[in-house]
């Protein structure tokens, strides 16, 4: 196939673009904004997905919940000892935790109970236990809070302590002993840590009961088998493995960016029409130019090629600028406004950082959604221009 690049033709195309400066700059700016918006959405979902999945990675492989009448229910701590007898299980820890709704600020705190001399199911907790003695905290009835929680509490003038309202209406005063940072902000921002006894007291949970049980299985190949064994032993439980969680995260974010893209199609289509219109409206200047080119011996193919170079250069530049500005927008400015679409469940309204995640597939994806569409819009107008009658336009 003969596809030699003609450098003079490319130079001519660049000059042609520069000659119609205002028109092309307008197209460039609009197209850059479009690609930037699209790229930013994919980058944000990529980052959040990464953040959540690394949270899942830090968790134990299996979570066991008791289900009663289709609802989550407290589970007996003795179940953990039974699970520990299954071959392949290295740890089974009953967790005591829950969400505490703080009406004043309209947020949910995750209140997590920690026992000092117990194997910690999270590395970040293990570090905390070294720093704070939860036995001691319990005797003083105090707690360690995440950064976001601390801010929310201070804004409600709870600077030294916090009053939890127990289910029977009485108050429990817990003093703030310290602030901690987690590995990822998404998990630690809304978290309050205190001893298990205190958590039980706040939620009115019986001794010997736990919220759920987390199971550590060191060999990833055995996770499925262990999960099915637990399910057989306790048919009234819901057994969730970390791979299930990962797949559902993937699904949720694919779905979110998919919906965004589906809406975005409208914008792309509109853009397609604008380009088609812009490219069709040739000024008499441009018509004369094409007429002269043909008169001095350019073939239709040459003009088509030159027009293709023009649209490719323009759209590829817009693509590059779009990608770069999206990277700046998401990772330097932390994607104001746009991020809110993707972060928003029962969480503290937090200020977590989007971690830098670079996936080359995003670049390809955005490429296929931008450059070919622009070029497609210019095919028919270019052909119209290229087949103009010489004698009609120069006359």
């Amino acid at each position, binding site marked *: *196939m*003969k596809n030699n690049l003609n450098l003079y033709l490319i130079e001519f195309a660049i000059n042609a673009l520069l000659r119609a400066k205002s028109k092309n700059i307008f197209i460039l700016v609009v197209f850059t904004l479009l690609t930037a918006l699209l790229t930013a959405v*994919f980058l944000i979902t990529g980052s959040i997905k990464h953040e959540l999945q690394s949270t899942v990675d830090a968790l134990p492989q299996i979570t066991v919940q008791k289900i009663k009448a289709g609802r989550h229910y407290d589970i007996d701590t003795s179940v953990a000892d039974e699970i520990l007898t299954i071959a392949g299980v290295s740890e089974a820890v009953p967790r005591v935790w829950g969400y505490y709704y703080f009406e004043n600020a309209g947020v949910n705190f995750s209140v997590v109970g920690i026992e000092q001399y117990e194997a910690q199911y999270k590395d970040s907790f293990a570090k905390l236990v070294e720093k704070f003695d939860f036995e001691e905290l319990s005797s003083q009835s105090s707690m360690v809070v995440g950064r976001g929680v601390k801010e929310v509490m201070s804004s409600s003038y709870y600077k030294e302590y916090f009053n939890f309202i127990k289910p029977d209406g009485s108050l429990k005063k817990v003093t703030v002993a310290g602030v901690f940072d987690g590995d990822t902000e998404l998990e630690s921002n809304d978290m309050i840590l205190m001893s298990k006894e205190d958590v039980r007291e706040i939620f009115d949970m019986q001794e010997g009961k736990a919220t759920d049980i987390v199971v550590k299985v060191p060999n990833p190949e055995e996770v499925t088998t262990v999960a099915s064994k637990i399910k057989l032993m306790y048919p009234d439980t819901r057994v969730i493995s970390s791979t299930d969680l990962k*797949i559902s995260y*993937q*699904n949720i974010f*694919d*779905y979110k*960016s*998919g*919906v965004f*893209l*589906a809406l975005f*199609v409208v914008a*792309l289509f509109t853009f397609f029409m604008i380009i088609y219109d812009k490219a069709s409206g040739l000024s008499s200047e441009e018509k004369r130019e094409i007429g002269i080119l043909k008169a001095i011996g350019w073939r*239709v*193919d040459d003009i*088509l090629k030159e027009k293709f170079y023009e649209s490719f250069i323009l759209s590829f530049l817009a693509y590059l600028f779009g990608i770069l500005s999206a990277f700046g927008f998401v990772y330097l400015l932390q994607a104001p406004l746009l991020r809110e679409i993707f972060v928003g469940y029962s969480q503290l309204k937090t200020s977590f950082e989007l971690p830098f995640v670079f996936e080359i*597939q995003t670049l*390809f*994806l955005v490429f*296929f*959604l931008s450059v*070919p*569409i622009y*070029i*497609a819009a210019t*095919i*028919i107008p*270019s*052909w119209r221009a*290229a*087949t103009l009658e010489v004698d009609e336009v120069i006359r």
Partner: protein
Amino acid sequence: MILAPEVLAILILNSIFLLFSLVAFVLSVRIFIKWDMSATTQEQYGLEKQSFLAATIIKYIFAIKLPLFLFFVFTLDKISTLLTGAMCGAGVVDATDYGSYLLILKLMNLYLFGFWLTLHYLDIKSPNLPYTRLKFEFFIVAFLFLLVEIVLEGVMFGSIDIDKMVSCCGTLYSSSSTSAISGIFSIDTTVMLTLFYGNFLFMVIFYMMRYQYLFAISNLAFIVVALISLIQFFGTYIYELPTHHCPFCFLQSDYYFVGYLIYSLLFLGTFYGMRVGVVKMLDEDRGKGFKLSMIFNGVYVVLVTAYPIFYFIRNGVWL
């Protein structure tokens, strides 16, 4: 239905292809019916202009389809993580009844569009455009294949059920499986390898003798033989695992995406090889495709041969 952005992107581009190829199809039919090179009518003059539009559209579609095919394979790999049981593209292809047909059709269409371009370049090189009717006749056929491909692709992505369990490549391509693929495992490895290298040897001989038709036919046979030997023999050395025969897994990052290189070499080599036959059919005697075909096929053979040899050097045994 999977609403992954990759799938949507493919569907959006497909709808653009559909729109434009429809235009090209209408123009092709008109040109095919009314083309008369010797006429000096207004109509013939208009047709000549329209042939440029049709050709540009077809070139555009081909230019996007080529990278999009790689992207499609990549997408199959990506959505395989969503399907229970699937570990690579094989599971996704097998998830619906249409997957394997779609893949074959996609490949075939790439070859068809490539041949169309060959025809086109031969056509516009000559001042009296000898093949214009022929190339648009050819496109009318190619358009139907393209149409089937686009419909099939939409149906396939639409009918993938995320909650349904699919088979993993380990079972799909196991030697004990009873599927159609198991037939190729009944072929003896030595026979298989003799066929593979014999075929390549013939190709070299035909290349030296410049037998164009035989060269093209040996290339056509080479696609089949190479793919079967890749699944049955060479693949196991890429994985260094005697039981793993999957032709998709080596497209993944664990094998440094080597599959993309392997398949590109094979398909480019055989495309140029068969192109030689097409050119010969039109009595245009040019040997340019010969060399390119030999280079790509040669590198392919060296690459897949290197895997077992390096394995043997490192471990001292064959799998």
